[in-house]
């Protein structure tokens, strides 16, 4: 509880500072002007969604390997938080697109990939809800692994399908005044995300416990022999 709370508070603080710097300290970008400020929340959302999906993938493997339900708790935490960030990513990307390309949606590689990714992992959460208790953990892990493996394939196929987009700009090539808010926000969302992951895992664990009735007390066995 304490770890979770301090992570959340630290994350929030970083996020506030990063956002302030991103909005008011960092200079506007050369071509995109003020619109570029969306990047300070957009890119961190993307990084963290990917990172949390990767966590989920790791948890899925651990869950199948060990059969321990704790890994499944963490898995649902990671997937759920990542799906929220992923949905945000799409909305931010769409607003950015409207401002720079003049359309809400462009079949851009990363935007399209993140839409497919959202559908894939929303599918994991749906399957989870439909599965019976005995199979829930295994099915969630299976679906998570299958979905995660798909992400690079989707990325490459969309890229080949429509390869007319800007190349990824690495933080080294941009102004340091831009790098700092970006990093602050990235770490802020990461800490917040991990705190949520833990909170969500705790909820799942509590739900599991609630469904576990205590073992009934042992009855006395009557022995009879006719031999």
């Amino acid at each position, binding site marked *: 509880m304490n770890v979770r709370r301090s992570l959340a508070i630290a994350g929030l603080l970083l996020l506030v500072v990063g956002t302030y710097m991103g909005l008011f300290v960092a200079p506007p970008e050369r071509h995109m002007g003020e619109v570029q400020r969306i990047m300070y929340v957009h890119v961190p959302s993307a990084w963290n969604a990917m990172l949390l999906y990767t966590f989920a993938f790791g948890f899925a493997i651990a869950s199948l390997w060990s*059969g321990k339900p704790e890994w499944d708790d963490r898995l649902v935490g990671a997937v759920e938080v990542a799906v929220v960030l992923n949905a945000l990513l799409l909305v931010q990307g769409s607003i950015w697109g409207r401002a720079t390309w003049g359309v809400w949606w462009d079949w851009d590689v990363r935007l399209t990939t993140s839409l497919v990714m959202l559908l894939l992992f929303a599918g994991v959460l*749906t399957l989870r809800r439909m599965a019976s208790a*005995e199979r829930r*953990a295994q099915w969630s892990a299976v679906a998570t692994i*299958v979905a995660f493996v798909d992400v690079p*394939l989707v990325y490459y196929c*969309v890229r080949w399908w429509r390869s007319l987009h800007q190349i990824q700009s690495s933080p080294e090539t941009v102004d340091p005044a831009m790098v700092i808010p970006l990093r602050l926000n990235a770490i802020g969302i990461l800490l917040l995300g991990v705190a949520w992951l833990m909170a969500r895992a705790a909820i799942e664990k509590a739900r599991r416990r609630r469904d576990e009735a205590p073992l009934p007390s042992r009855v006395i066995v009557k022995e009879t022999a006719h031999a």
Partner: protein
Amino acid sequence: MRVVWSILAKDLLLEWRERARTLSVVLFAVVTLLLFSFALGPDVEALRAGTPGFLVLALLLSSTLALNESFRIEREDRALEGLLMRPVGSMAMFYAKALANALLLTLLAPVVVGLAVVLYSLEVGPPALAGLVGCWALGAAGLAAPGTLYAAMTSRLKTQDVALPILLFPLVVPVLLGSVKAMDLVLFGDAMNQLQSWVSLLLAFDVIYWAVCGVLFRYAVEEGE
């Protein structure tokens, strides 16, 4: 291997015995193709340009029918559980079921591709036809692997008719794109020599998912704690 073959033979025999059901999958694919044509209006040029997309969508939509059907026979008298009780190994079971599904979906190709050639007055020679069927087969294989894995899970659910498509369709976006583009290049010429990269994308998807799903199938069919 022998075990894979005997389960596969059983599936194919049952498929043949219940050919009325199998035929309904074929009919469904044909109807889908027709509907796409009506939706796009009678402009032959536009229809012709859209052929690869229509073909792959017909395949995709009929695949969920075929996949659900393939597990209905296993669920009816819980026969899948009977197979589990034999020293078969879930991997062998997976490959048998997935092969049966891939074969069945591939067998749709001659009918649906043939119909498309007639409907959209495509001018194709034997090499192009072979190419189309080849792309179709690669796509069918790509659908069959994750499709078999997911159908094994969703066949236990009351919501199986919805569950399978919402899980499967986003997953097979690479298969869809890959086979549409590959068919497009086969049909309308491949000026920049891109066919190879699309075919290798399809192959990569097939290889990865035939391997991964084979390993994971066990967790889809065995009961956990």
